């Protein structure tokens, strides 16, 4: 969830050069092309259930090498290099594991998908992640049904699908097939400094009136009630507004948006959520934050210059190095906006994230599935949590670990929320253009250059355009 920094001109040139390299000298100028010629897609390996052995359910060839590509962003790549890959080697001592870490997944891997030399396991993440829908269309993603139906490593009597949080199975689907593994669990709402609140004797606001009252109190002490990064991180605020809409009108508000339902952006809950936050920005905000990026904003929070920051539970680990002793991250649910919010106070977003997939046309898809099965073992998951201070989708894997206070507060908030869990907005991955447009427009409406109604109309117009665009493959979700 960190941003790998800007690309430089040099990198762009290198990328342009890559295109030429694929062509190779001597290739016909028009015939041989960056699109890789007209090879028929090889039959992808979709079913890998070749063995009844619960210790090797996919029939992995113990000598075949395995190629793993990890996005080394906020989680780093140590969890793969020092935990998961050694576990794989322990199981197959004869197999070499080739580890590759990058921050530019898309630019590095796309040419490989065109040429055919793909890694077996890919951690597809970051702002330059590959377009999974496009990959799925071409049959590049291995079906994970075999993985979910395989016996789990810790208890062969149970299937993998029974040891992970159910959201994994919902979010695995592209075009109705299980193709993506989401590995981490994160808790999103507002984050604040529990120690500051304790020192001032403030309590976390439960209603919008309490929220603004606290804003006045904080203002008197020169502290900002709320801010989000207008540079690079405005999507944090887009999430926040969408989750607020779900709190007001129930998860249907987000589900309709995801399904491109007519008028979904103009629904009353969405309008109310946008208006409520635009009002907070106008009355309690500071426009300077429109020009600050996520790190600068987060540092300001560490300096107690702002109270609430809309983000997810990875924040604690992300800022661990800069965090002063007087700061303790804790999660605060979004306050009640109206007296009749569909979801009661305490609702927070709990979502799965961090995509992994197995390349269907790689050299060792069986090994890839086995690698994911290892990641979903208790050892694999616990190791990840130890390395990254973030939770995984594996049930109970973090038991007995000494979790930092922010994560503990998130776990407590989840218990308190019970069934009132706000869903994730999946159009972020499905219709990136719509999501990007939203991250741009949220700055415009928060800065007061357009009204909340205009924001809703603009978003609706863009959603309608995407709906009409036949070249964009459509996805739908239930619930």
């Amino acid at each position, binding site marked *: 969830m960190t941003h790998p920094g800007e690309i430089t001109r040099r990198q762009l040139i290198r990328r342009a050069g890559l295109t030429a390299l694929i062509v190779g000298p001597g290739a016909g100028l028009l015939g041989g092309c960056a*699109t890789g010629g*007209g090879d028929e*897609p090889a039959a992808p390996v979709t079913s890998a259930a070749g063995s009844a052995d619960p210790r090797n359910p996919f029939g992995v060839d113990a000598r075949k090498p395995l190629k793993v590509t990890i996005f080394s962003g906020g989680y780093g790549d140590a969890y793969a290099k020092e935990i998961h890959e050694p576990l794989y080697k322990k199981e197959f001592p004869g197999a070499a594991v080739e580890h590759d870490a990058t921050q530019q997944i898309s630019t590095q891997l*796309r040419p490989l998908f065109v040429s055919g030399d793909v890694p077996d396991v890919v951690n597809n993440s970051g702002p330059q992640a590959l377009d999974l829908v496009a990959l799925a269309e071409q049959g590049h993603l291995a079906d994970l049904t075999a993985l979910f139906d395989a016996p789990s490593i810790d208890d062969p009597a149970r299937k993998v699908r029974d040891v992970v949080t159910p959201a994994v199975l919902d979010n695995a689907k592209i075009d109705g097939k299980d193709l993506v593994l989401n590995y981490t669990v994160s808790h999103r709402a507002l984050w604040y400094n529990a120690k500051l609140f304790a020192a001032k004797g403030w309590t976390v606001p439960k209603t919008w009136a309490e929220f603004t009252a606290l804003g006045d109190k904080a203002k008197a002490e020169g502290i900002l009630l709320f801010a989000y990064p207008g540079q690079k991180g405005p999507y944090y605020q887009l999430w926040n507004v969408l989750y607020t809409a779900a709190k007001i009108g129930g998860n249907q508000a987000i589900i309709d948006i995801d399904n491109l339902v007519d008028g979904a952006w103009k629904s009353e809950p969405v309008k109310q959520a946008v208006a409520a936050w635009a009002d907070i920005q106008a009355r309690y905000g500071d426009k300077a934050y429109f*020009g600050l990026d996520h790190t600068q904003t987060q540092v300001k929070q560490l300096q107690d210059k702002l109270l609430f920051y809309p983000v997810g539970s990875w924040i604690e680990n992300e800022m661990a190095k800069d965090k002063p002793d007087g700061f303790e991250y804790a999660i605060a649910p979004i306050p009640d906006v109206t007296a009749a919010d569909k979801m009661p106070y305490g609702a927070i977003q709990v979502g799965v994230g961090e995509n992994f997939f197995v390349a269907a046309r790689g050299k060792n898809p069986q090994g890839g599935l086995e690698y994911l099965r290892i990641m979903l073992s208790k050892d694999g998951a616990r190791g990840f949590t130890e390395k990254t201070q973030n939770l995984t989708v594996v049930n109970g894997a973090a038991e007995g670990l000494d979790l930092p206070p922010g994560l503990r507060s998130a776990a407590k908030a989840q218990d308190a929320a019970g069934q009132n869990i706000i869903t994730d907005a999946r159009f972020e991955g499905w219709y990136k253009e719509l999501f*990007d447009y939203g991250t*741009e427009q949220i700055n415009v409406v928060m800065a007061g*250059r357009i009204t909340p109604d205009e924001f809703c109309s603009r978003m609706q117009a863009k959603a309608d355009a995407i709906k009409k665009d036949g070249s964009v493959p459509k996805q739908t979700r239930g619930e």
Partner: protein
Amino acid sequence: MERWRTYGFVAGFLAVPIVLYTVFVISPYVQAFQISLTDWNGIAARPGYVGLDNFRRLLGDEVFWRALRNHGILLLVLPIATIVIALFFAFLLNLGGGARGPGMAGVRGSAFYRVVFFFPQVLAVAVVGVLFKAVYRPDESGVINGALVRLGADPVGWLIEPDLALWSIIAVMVWQAVGFYVVLFSAGMAAIPKDYFEAAALDGAGRARLFFSITLPLLRDTVQVGWVYLGIAAFDGFALIQVLAGDKGEPDGATTVLPIEIWKNAFSYSKVGYASAMGVALFFLTVTFAVLTLRTTRRERIDL
């Protein structure tokens, strides 16, 4: 036979660069033209041909026109501002001191200024971007805003006000470019024979008169080359805008340019075909500009 030997010799030298140029420059260009006629998503093994659909879409794309408008502003402001400032500095450095000793001299300390002016040119664009991020930072920690706040003024959102952002970026581009053109024009001025100036000075011409009546006309070719370079630079701006404004040409797309849109469409939205169509449009814009500039400003050479 003799002719063959000569041409063979020349061709031997040219073969390698021509092959490299073909493979790394010409062939990607040709492919971009080809891909612009498809709906390729960067991954599909077989892109589908859609004819001129991408170009038709381009004409109706509001963002494309916004990018073009920004290129227009850049094209007008960047060369004029840079050349005017660079000419002024070059004149001061070389001739501004008036007649001192034999021939003309620059103002006092011109050797020192020459080096200082060239500094920005040595910095990588990304470094300049990061540097000016700190300069333009919108709160009191910014270099400019820190001074403003101390003077009692409100901080200004240099890069976050849609009406201001593009101008802030143009200022950085000018700042970075001026040094190079000072050196370029200084070289041009050094080539002008000193007697012209001495003769004019004897006739009582002041510095302004020297500049407009002698320096400028005799520098015409150099200025024209600078104009073309700067015009082409106005069609780029990618790295600086990426770092300073953000990868969507923030705020509200007020600073977006075609390379930013190409990047976004190709690498974020996987619309490689559409992005290539933008690239083709950019190619024609750049070529048209260069040809037009060279044609319209062509004139009889003045022999020195």
